[in-house]
């Protein structure tokens, strides 16, 4: 225990990086996933197929492979994202490693988010969409005002599962240059062989807390959006 508590700032910083990876790729995957889902249920055949192809590619590829592609293949193709390090907003800038990691996590998770949203849209009775179109709403309007508000309720539990998986998937970044929780845990156990089990448990606890925060807020949302 002492090894961790005497370096508690390291522990917090490590989970800070984990949280950063989660928040950025979480928002990214929700946006991209929602967009893909709209394409998949949309009226344009080519877009439907393109979105379906995206899901096939990224849902069926191991996350590790996407990471390897980002870290090993992209720099060789000339995309190392070094340019982001020159952008500075209010004294803050992100590293190319962070961008590559969040990009890998976002691309991967979006496929699952898309499917969760699609299942939500499918849970809304077709008659609703037909009625919306019948009163003259465009496709975008009928999605925005009729289908999605109802779908959102149905989609909270599966979406929570996807985001919880994302929190834990951030640990893959440990082997790709990010000093997040799992990487820091390995540094701790390497330096403190005599406290291995305690260190492991403390880091597991950190993940449990993070996941529980997301899970609890999803319960709150579920209750809030519930229609009597």
């Amino acid at each position: 225990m002492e090894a961790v508590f005497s370096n508690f700032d390291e522990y917090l910083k490590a989970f800070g990086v984990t949280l950063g990876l989660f928040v950025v790729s979480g928002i990214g995957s929700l946006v991209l996933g929602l967009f893909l889902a709209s394409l998949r249920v949309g009226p344009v055949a080519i877009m439907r197929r393109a979105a379906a192809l995206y899901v096939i590619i990224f849902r069926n590829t191991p996350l590790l492979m996407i990471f390897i592609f980002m870290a090993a293949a992209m720099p060789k193709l000339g995309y190392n994202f070094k340019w982001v390090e020159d952008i500075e907003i209010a004294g803050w800038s992100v590293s190319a490693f962070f961008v590559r990691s969040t990009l890998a996590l976002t691309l991967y998770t979006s496929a699952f988010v898309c499917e969760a949203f699609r299942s939500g849209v499918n849970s809304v009775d077709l008659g609703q969409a037909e009625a919306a179109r019948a009163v003259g709403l465009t496709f975008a309007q009928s999605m925005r005002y009729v289908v999605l508000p109802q779908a959102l309720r149905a989609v909270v539990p599966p979406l929570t599962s996807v985001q919880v998986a994302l929190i834990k998937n951030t640990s893959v970044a440990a082997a790709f240059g990010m000093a997040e929780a799992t990487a820091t845990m390995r540094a701790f156990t390497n330096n403190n062989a005599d406290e291995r089990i305690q260190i492991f448990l403390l880091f597991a606890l950190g993940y449990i807390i993070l996941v529980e925060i997301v899970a609890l807020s999803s319960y709150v949302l579920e209750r809030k959006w519930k229609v009597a």
Partner: protein
Amino acid sequence: MRPRPTLRRFTAAAAAAVLATSITACGNAGNDDSETRDVDVAENAADEFEDGTRMKELAEDGKITIGVKYDQPGLGFKGATDDMPRGFDPEIGKILAGSLGIAPEDITWKETISDNREPFLQEGEVDLVIATYSITDERRQVVGQAGPYYVTGQQLLVRSDNDEINGVEDIKGSEVCSVTGSTSLDNVKKEGAKPRGFDTYSECVDQVLDGTVDAMTTDGTILLGYAAEQPDDLKVVGEPFSEELYGIGYSKDRPEMCQWINDTLTQAFEDGSWEEAFDVTLGESGVDAPEKPELQSCDA
């Protein structure tokens, strides 16, 4: 029906060709062993040890399990198609096994990564750990470490065209990669560099070549091995800035092994087999064998 016989003849020829290639392939694989040196195997070794010691048990069984690394060229490396790990660590293992009368082919090698070296020793999964295992006080709380059999220091590997980093004093603020969770990475972090952890050294070297990180760090000998592979693109810079004493791990329940390890190492220092082991492994990259390290007493 005409083409049939021709086709059949073709397949037969193809099969013969494949067979021939596979035979030559086998022959080649066998030749790889010629690089290694001959190992002295003691006869009737079991008589030399007192009853009840772990050495006696091992010598009587004629078998020993040794944990080594599989991903560090020169020190402990096993390619996907290799039968046995090669490197300085396995050579030291062979010397130790030899003193128990155990021939190299009777040694069971097990891959130990940094994280499982202590658990493997504590659970008796391996008898010895010879895996770039730096001697530290924390580790000595849970396992025994005899030696050191080798002393090395951490250095930096950069691209040949990099003029900015000439030593550890230049790495502040730059990105330096090594293996996730390693001591080397911790050390450069203390020097103000941004640590970038990867799973293996080879991935890390790729990052240096791609220019995604500025430098790679770990023990100088490993870096020299990579620099020797690509002398036009990579170079090792700066003086060593840490001292790592590689020790041999054994179970704390078997303290008698320490003296035996030290005695065997002393003998290997004296009869030249230690130097020979160095020359056929780490010495391949053109480095001369360093000074023999001073062994630490087992009484401590």
